[in-house]
Structures are given as C-alpha cells and as structure tokens.
C-alpha cells in the first residue's frame, strides 16, 4: 500500500497452497520491487520452497490466490505463455543439486535454456552458456563435464547459471549457496547482488546468516504463515517474534560465542487454528491456541503475535538502593533500568562489590528497592513461583536438618501446591541428574557432596515451574569440569523449559556462553550492554576462510 503498484515487479496476494488436505502455506502476501532482495526465512518444512514453486507455477499442490508478475497474473496465464516466461523473465534456482540431467554435459543443459527462449543457433547458445558458466565461477574446462564429474558446489553453480543465463527480471533463489564453502558463499552473494542489481530477488533460505548478507527485507515464515516481516538490519538486531528470536539463536554464524539453543519442540507440530508457533512457544497464552494472530505494526515492522512479540517478564525501573553502614550511607545501586524477556539469557557482570548480588535480590523481590520498582508480566501472587533464586553457596541455603526430600518439598508446602508431590519431586531430581532412590531421598542434605548440593538447590528452584531463574555465581569456586556440567544443565533448562536466565557472574566467558545480552554493572550503575548475537559477517566483511 505504501509502494506504487507500478513499481512493483512481483505482487503476491493471499497465496495459499494445499497438499491433499493440509495447507502448507496460508494467506501469503509479498511485494518485490525491481532491485529489491527479499529474504524468505524459516525452518525446513515451513513452506518456503512451495511459495517459490507456487509463484513459478510449478507447485504440485493446489495453489490459490494471486501472483502478479508485472501486472500479469501468473496463476491465470495460459500454460504456454507462462512457460515462455519461465526460465527467461522469471527464473528459479532450485535447491536440489541433483536437478541436473545425468547424461548431458552441463554446458548443453545451460545452452538449452538459452535456445528455448532465444532463436539462436546451437553454437551461439553454447557460446553464451560457456561464458555465463565462467562468470558464475565454474572453471572453463569443466563446462563440458557431466554432472557426476562435478562437486556439489560446482553443480550448484551450474544450476545457478541455468536459471540466470537469460538475465531474468525476477529471480527466485532456493538455498542458492547451500553447497558452497564460506569464501565461495560471499563471492556468489556479491555476484548475485552485482549482476542482478535491477532485478527482483526472492531469496529462500533457512540460513539467517545468508539472508542477512543478501536481503534488504526479511520475511519470517513459520508453519506456512508469516510471523514477522521487516528490514533485515532491524530484525537481526532485535527480533520481536519469539519464533524469529529462536531462529536467530539457533544459527551458528550469528552466535560465535553463545551456546546454540535449538528451537524447542517438534517443528512438524503446527497449530492450524491459532498461532502456528503456539505449540512450541514458551510465552503462549490460551488465546494463542485458538485465535489466529494477524500482522500488525510493532517496532517499525510487522509482527503476527498475540503478545506483541517477546514479552518482558521482569522489568526494573529506575531502581536504587543504599545501605547504611557505620561510616554513613553507601549507595549500592543507582537508577537501574533493565528487563528480562521470556526465554532470554541475561548475564550480569561486574567486579566484586559492584552490586550484582544486591540487584539479584531486588529482582527476586527478596530485597525492596529504595527507589523505583520491579514489575512483572505475571500476577503478584504468582511472583514467588515464577521467579526463583539459586544461591551461590548451596550449603548456606539449605537447612542443616532437612533431608533431600524435605529440601525439595519445602517450596511446594509453602505455596500450598496441590498434592501429590512425589512425582514432581522425583521429576525435578531426575532433571538435574540426581538419584531418586528412597535411600538418597532420606539422606540429610548437608551430607551430600558440593556438586550434589548445587544440583539440589537447582532442583528446589525448579519444583515450582519458574519462568525466571536468577543464578548467583553458578560456577564460582568450582573446577572447570563441574562448572561445565552446571552450565550445560542451565542451558538445557533454558532450551527444554524455555526458562529465562539471569546469571550473575564475574566471569566474561561464562557470560558469553549463556547470555543473549550482557550487562556490565560498575559502581551501582549499568555501564554497558552488549548483545551476544553478533552477526559474524557484519564484523568481517571479508570471508573467514580465504
């Protein structure tokens, strides 16, 4: 609506693709202007390829909706007219590098694409094909080769050459660089951008880092529906939809330091009635399961989420705290404003005495701030269940009289949780990797080893199904092997339960591993915030591998 329809090259409206009874794409709309590169990103099976094939008129499923290419409706074009457009004005690089005919030399296969659309001689077509193959980066002596004599990357270049040799105005690229090494990826991406400067490109990929390097705009697809759409930079810097964030967090290239977190749940479980991501979303509310969210404007982009994107579970506003000591008042915290989003990992760093533990206590409402407030996304009555603190020194945090059983049971008793407790207690113990034998359960907690105690406090924190865990120096004073176990355990919890983590640590390496954002606290103030999501290629425009 903002763009004049005359300037748009491709205008897809309400595209729906159904295989058998199952809709794989629903209500998809897209506009591409000449010279624009739009990235279509989503997991495998999210319907990306079907959209590409649907636009080309090659999708085996039932396709409805409109796809206007230069004001001509591709869906309603006579078969022969569509065919003459295909491979000429409108072309697709298919994902499958087995898409080459095994018994013709690759040169002939590219030449065939020239010949079918331009009435040139066979020799002329071959000449064009040869020079085009070379420009795509296939060594000239390999032009006469058969597909099986080429590597996967070379075959992919042939597929690219075949689709692009006629200089199409609209190019659909389906995982165009999937078989290339890092350096070649960069070269090809630059080649595409330079060669098709004035063409429209729809880039289909599951690899956010490729989309990032090539696309002006991104469309995030989940279960056949658009969940987020906006400028590439903005989406990468701050993903709004939980699915987008999950997608970014699972990408190796975007997370050079942080531990990768897979998208939880089964990608084939798609809610057809409500939000497609609902079965796997950690912040889903009942509405998400039965009402379909529509795209609306949030943070300068369009997002389809009932909750308006990733919600802030816990927000501290202008929090200040001072302690009175003999010498007078000491200002521990000053004007602290921060929020912890659902499923997020935040590290709180700073030198000893910077006020880290105080902030932790305030965020968990164990300590009242002097100024400012801590607000939460959930009811105040639920606060104690939803936010749990895991103490640095477990021995101090567990009564010396309690058995293992009593330790874990205590929170349940306190919040008067409904019985039976037995299963829940055993479950959390198993989750943190502790035994559940009768013998073990009846042991006095303080007789356990240091490692077992660390796990035990974690189990105690988990038994109330918290949304946020604040871990105070989880790895301080323990050996590397044990520290790695505890970190892995926390990461696993974040992955499987979608828990938000606030890790208070003085160790920068730990912070980089677990956090999406790192907050540096110094002298009672937040000095700096670093996102750990660092697109590698933005920092290093030159290929990593040369």
């Amino acid at each position, binding site marked *: 609506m903002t763009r004049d329809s005359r300037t748009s090259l491709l205008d897809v409206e309400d595209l729906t693709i159904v295989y058998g009874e199952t809709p794989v794409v629903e209500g998809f709309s897209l506009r591409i202007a000449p010279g624009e590169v739009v990235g279509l990103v989503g997991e495998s099976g999210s319907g990306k390829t079907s959209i590409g094939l649907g636009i080309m008129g090659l999708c085996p499923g039932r396709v409805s909706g409109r796809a206007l290419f230069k004001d001509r409706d591709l869906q309603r074009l006579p078969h022969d007219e569509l065919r003459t457009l295909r491979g000429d004005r409108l072309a697709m690089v298919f994902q499958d590098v087995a898409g080459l*005919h095994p018994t013709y030399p690759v040169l002939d296969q590219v030449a065939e694409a020239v010949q*079918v659309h331009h009435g040139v001689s066979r020799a002329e077509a071959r000449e064009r094909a040869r020079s085009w193959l070379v420009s795509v980066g296939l060594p000239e002596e390999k032009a006469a080769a058969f597909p099986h004599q080429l590597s996967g990357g070379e075959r992919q270049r042939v597929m690219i050459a075949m689709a692009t040799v006629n200089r199409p105005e609209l190019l659909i690229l389906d995982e165009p660089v999937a078989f290339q090494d890092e350096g070649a990826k960069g070269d090809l991406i630059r080649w595409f951008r330079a060669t098709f400067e004035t063409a429209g490109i729809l880039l289909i990929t599951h690899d956010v880092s490729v989309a990032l390097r090539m696309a002006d705009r991104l469309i995030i697809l989940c279960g056949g529906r658009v969940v987020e759409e906006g400028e590439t930079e903005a989406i990468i810097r701050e993903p709004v939809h939980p699915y987008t964030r999950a997608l970014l967090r699972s990408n190796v290239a975007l997370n050079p330091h942080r531990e990768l977190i897979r998208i939880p749940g089964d990608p084939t479980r798609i809610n057809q009635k409500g939000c497609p991501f609902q079965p796997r979303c950690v912040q889903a509310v009942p509405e998400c399961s039965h009402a379909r969210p529509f795209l609306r404007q949030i943070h300068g982009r369009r997002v389809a989420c009932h909750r308006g994107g990733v919600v802030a579970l816990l927000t501290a506003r202008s929090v200040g705290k001072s302690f009175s000591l003999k010498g007078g008042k000491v200002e521990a915290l000053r004007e602290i404003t921060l929020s912890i989003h659902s499923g997020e990992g935040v590290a709180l760093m700073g030198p000893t005495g910077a006020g880290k533990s105080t902030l932790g206590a305030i965020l968990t409402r164990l300590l009242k701030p002097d100024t400012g407030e801590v607000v939460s996304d959930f009811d105040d009555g639920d606060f104690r269940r939803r936010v749990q603190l895991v103490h640095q020194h477990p021995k101090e945090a567990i009564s010396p009289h309690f058995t293992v059983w009593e330790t874990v049971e205590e929170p349940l008793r306190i919040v008067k949780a409904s019985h039976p407790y037995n299963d829940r207690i055993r479950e959390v113990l198993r989750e943190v990797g502790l035994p559940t034998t009768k013998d073990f359960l009846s042991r006095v907690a303080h007789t356990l080893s240091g490692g077992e105690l660390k796990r035990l406090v974690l189990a105690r924190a988990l038994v109330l199904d918290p949304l946020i865990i604040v871990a105070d120096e989880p790895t301080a004073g323990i050996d590397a092997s044990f520290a790695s176990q505890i970190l892995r355990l926390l990461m696993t919890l974040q992955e499987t339960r979608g828990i938000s983590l606030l890790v208070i640590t003085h160790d920068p390496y730990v912070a980089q591993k677990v956090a999406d954002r790192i907050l540096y606290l110094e002298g009672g103030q937040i000095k700096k915030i670093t996102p750990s999501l660092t697109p590698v290629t933005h920092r290093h425009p030159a290929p990593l591998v040369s």
Partner: protein
Amino acid sequence: MSRTVPATFTGRWISSPALVRGTRTLGGYVLALGGILFLNYVLLRLLPGDIQTVIGAEVMTRAPAAAPGSAGPSSLAAFGHYLLRILKGEWGVSYFFHRPVLQVIFQFLPWSLVLGFLSLAAASLLGIVLGVEAAGKADGWLDRLATGGAVVFMSLPGYLLGILLLVLFSILLPLFPLSGGVRPFTPAWSLPFFLNALRHLALPWLTLTLLMFPEYYLLTRGGMDLSLRRPFILTARGKGLRERVIRYRHAARDTLIPVLTRVGIQMGHLVTGLVFVEVVFAYPGVGTLAFESIQRRDILLMDGILLISAVWVVLMNLAADLLLRRLDPRVKEAGG
C-alpha cells in the same frame, strides 16, 4: 569396485541389472563363443563314429594327424583343429543340401534378418513411444489400452499368436498368404517380387512385433514413472521447456538407457521367436531351416545355425554395450 551403480539408481531393481552389466569386457564375449564352440564340439564327438562319417562330421572333429585312441593332448589338438576350421569358415557340408553349411545358411539368412530387424525396430519403437506417452497418466485411456495389450500379448507364446493370426487373417479373412516368403517363380529383385514378399512378411512381422513390444513398453513405462519424478524434471520445467521436450529429451533419455540394453539382451529371445514364427508361417528363414535340418538330422547344418545365432547374439550384445557407453557417461567411467 562394487559400486558401479550410481546411488540414485540403487533402488531400481528393474533397470539396475542393465546398468551393472554395462561393464562387460570383450573377454566375456570371446569366452561365451568359446563355450558354445566347445559344446558343439563335444556333442559332435558324442555321436557314434559311423554317423559322424555319414554326415561328414569326422572331417571337422578329428585332427588329421591324431593317433587313434589317444587321450588328452590329442583331444585338445582335435578341438584346436576344429576351432581352426570354424575360424577359417570351413563349417562342413550340409548332409541334405550337399553344399557347404555357410553357403546354405547365407541363402536363408537375409529373410530372417529382414523379418528380425523389422519386427525388432517396430516392437521397440512401439513399446518405447507408448511407454513415454502413457507414463505419468495413470488411468488414462492410453495407459489402460497399452498396459492391457501388453499383458495380453505377454501371455501368448509366439507360435500360438502366429496360429491365431493365421486363422484370423488367412483363413477367416483371406487377406494374407498362408505360408512362404514369396510366391514361387516370381522373378527375383523385381517390383512384384518385393510387393509379394512384403505381403508374405506382414503376418510374421506383426506376430513378432506384438510378441516383443510388451517388454519394451513395460520397461519404458516403469522407468518413465520414476524419471518423471526425478529432480531434473523440475529443473527442465523451470527452464520453460515444452512438455514434449521434457518427456522425450529429458525423462526418456534417462529411462531408455536400461531399455536399450534390454534390446541387446533380448536377442536370444528374438532368435527363439523367429524360429517359432518362421515355422508357423513356413517362412523361408534360418528358423525354418533349423527346424527342418533337425527333422532331416542334418547335424552339421544345425551346428552352423547354432553358431551363427550365437555370433549374432554376441554381436548385438556388444552393440548394445557400446550404445550404452555412448549414452550414459557414468557407465563409461565405471567400466574403466
């Protein structure tokens, strides 16, 4: 070493044998011919001595200088002698025709070659075109008709089909001559000669064609069904090629490789079919000659026919292999 089959082909048990066997060497053919010669030789030697003398086999199988009653080495020498004679084209004299065996065979051979090649060409063309057209259109009329026809003609042996066609087109509807190759006393190489020969050829040709097309049809159709689903078909569509070009130049090219090698393998069947059909129609070809020389106990002539057919089968196999190597670049490399 064992991976001569490209991975994409491994699931296809119908076509993969043909691909695997694309790697045969010339040595195999030579060995095959040697085996047949040896069998021939042994069978001849098994005949009682007096019969050997009567039919003139002795000349063929006894080394001139062989000491009577000696064992091993001289037997080997005798076999060598036999081989030498065969190589020199001295295949003995027909007991019935009183003429050299090769001469007799070459008199009858053209008739069989014409019939064989014409029906082979027609059967493979019919089967392949029907297969390419019918594939991917399951339940279409063409598919039903062609598949039904293939199943019916696969279930009829050649002699039976021949007799049925004979009854139908020569007795019930006297359109074609009952038997023979050409009306007697027609001047050779004249126009009436050719027309008349064609009329005689029609029914045997039809019989053999109908007999052989189902194999090609079913093989092509099955292969096409798979080929049409392979990724390169999508690529071809993406290029904007016409459906006909996609079917014939892309899908069929991939399918026809095993089918064409099957043409080579089927040569033995063609010989069998020829014998039966020629006998039914009393067609003056090598098949009828073989049948009659058995009845006349003209063993040397029979041997000659056997050898000629074996050479024919081996040559056609060789041709099929060479064709396969030309068509499929992968086989060329696997064959080394």
